[in-house]
């Protein structure tokens, strides 16, 4: 293998490139990305960069000393792919035929229907998005009135950061509880309480019905319960969709993501990683697509190794215990494992009332996850136990010993 093309110049793609070099690949690596910028880190976009506490330069992924000899194709988009010939067409730069392809083209925010062309409605995925939202939150007379649509993690972080900037914040969530499809009720509730504690007006079970505008700019959001919330700006956080449209006709299987096998292989010579990839995680017996930072890193690394291993890589099964964190106000939320709304929950350390605790999450007699608020070391210890596998009873017994 002499020539590897990576589509998507962000976290998964960059970590894949690093891994190729570390594993001794000395052929050509072409990294194609449709953003103008060199790879940067996204989590700060809703946290420190949005708050104005970190400069954009501080979030670049390349470190001094990273000398990967990459052939960069930035501000360039892959527009089609033929998996059988490993051939990519680029929007500006013609055709490209590689010996191996890594798909790391990520996901993009789902737009809120009906907001097309309305000024003051923001999505958040790129650095430019973050800088634009920051600008909007910090200019104007008096405190800005922000409506966040969607109480998922990104919406929640935007709400927290905006409160920190002195904005008046309303969060609108169509479901009855934040993260109702993701977390057991008691944990979704504490995620909600963290915001009401801080003076956020949380409207649950309220769908968005429409918008009022003033001279083309947003002025109010109308809700399904008949009420209306005045707004200077709106931030939308209603989930992401994987960037797979350009792969139609490629010969790959696309089903809410690029479908891979257990080893991250999507077709001979083609691997996928990060937010765009779906694969069966043997550890949980479940097909998953994970939109977390840590997965983009480890799957990017894994996919690079898998590609280099060629036919010898069939045993390189990718079966991580997913890990996610979110920082809101002075709370650090961490979640490890694979959890669902119907799982059982047991607080084993601290208390929910203090917003400092660890809860174990179980299903069918097995430990499947751990959730923590301001208890990072404990949560990480449970991640190790999840990797080793543990029954629910053993986990509770261990917890009662205080470890």
């Amino acid at each position, binding site marked *: 293998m002499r020539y590897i093309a990576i589509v998507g110049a962000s976290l998964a793609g960059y970590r894949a490139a690093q891994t190729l070099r570390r594993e001794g690949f000395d052929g050509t690596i072409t990294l194609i990305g449709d953003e103008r910028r060199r790879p940067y880190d996204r989590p700060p976009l809703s946290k420190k960069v949005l708050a104005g506490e970190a400069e954009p330069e501080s979030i670049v992924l390349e*470190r001094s000393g990273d000398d990967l000899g990459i052939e960069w194709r930035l501000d360039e988009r892959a527009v089609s792919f033929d998996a059988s010939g490993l051939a990519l067409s680029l929007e500006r730069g013609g055709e490209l035929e590689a010996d191996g392809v890594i798909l790391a083209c990520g996901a993009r925010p789902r737009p809120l229907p009906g907001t097309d062309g309305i000024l003051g409605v923001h999505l958040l995925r790129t650095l430019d998005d973050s800088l634009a939202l920051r600008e909007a939150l910090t200019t104007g007379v008096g405190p800005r009135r922000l409506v966040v649509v969607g109480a998922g993690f990104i919406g929640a972080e935007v709400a927290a950061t905006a409160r920190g900037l002195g904005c008046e914040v309303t969060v609108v969530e169509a479901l009855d509880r934040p993260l109702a499809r993701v977390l057991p009720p008691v944990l979704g509730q504490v995620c909600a309480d963290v915001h009401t504690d801080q003076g956020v007006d949380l409207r649950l079970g309220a769908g968005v019905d429409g918008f009022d505008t003033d001279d083309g700019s947003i002025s109010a959001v109308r809700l399904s319960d008949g009420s209306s919330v005045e707004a200077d700006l709106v931030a939308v956080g209603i989930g992401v969709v994987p960037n797979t449209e350009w792969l139609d006709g490629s010969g790959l299987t696309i089903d809410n993501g690029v479908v891979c096998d257990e080893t991250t292989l999507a077709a001979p010579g083609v691997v996928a990683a990060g937010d765009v990839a779906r694969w069966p995680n043997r550890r949980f017996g479940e097909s998953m697509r994970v939109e977390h930072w840590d997965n983009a890193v480890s799957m990017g690394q894994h996919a690079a190794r898998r590609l280099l291993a060629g036919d010898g890589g069939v045993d390189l099964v990718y079966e991580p215990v997913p890990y996610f*964190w979110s920082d809101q106000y002075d709370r*650090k939320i961490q979640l490890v494992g694979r959890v669902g709304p119907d799982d059982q929950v047991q607080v084993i350390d601290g208390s929910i009332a203090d917003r400092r605790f660890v809860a174990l999450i179980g299903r069918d007699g097995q430990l499947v996850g751990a959730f923590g608020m301001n208890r990072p070391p404990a949560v990480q210890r449970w991640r190790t136990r999840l990797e080793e596998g543990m029954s629910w009873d053993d986990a509770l017994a261990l917890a009662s010993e205080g470890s």
Partner: protein
Amino acid sequence: MMANVTSVPTQETVMAKIAVNFDLCESNAVCMQVAPKYFEVRDDDFLYILQEEIDEADAATVQEAVDRCPKQAISIEP
């Protein structure tokens, strides 16, 4: 009588070292999970480096901790 010890020149092993930028570190303990021999976040929420010098056999594990640190706070100094 003292044995005549032939002095063996100390082996010049230049060991790579762990450096953490504590201004960036947010004590999320990811490094501890990856490489518990080197990193520990204690209940006071501070990160402690348990061993600065990286044993040759652990190079890949420590590198993994560097890559997985969400704040890019860890580096390896030659």
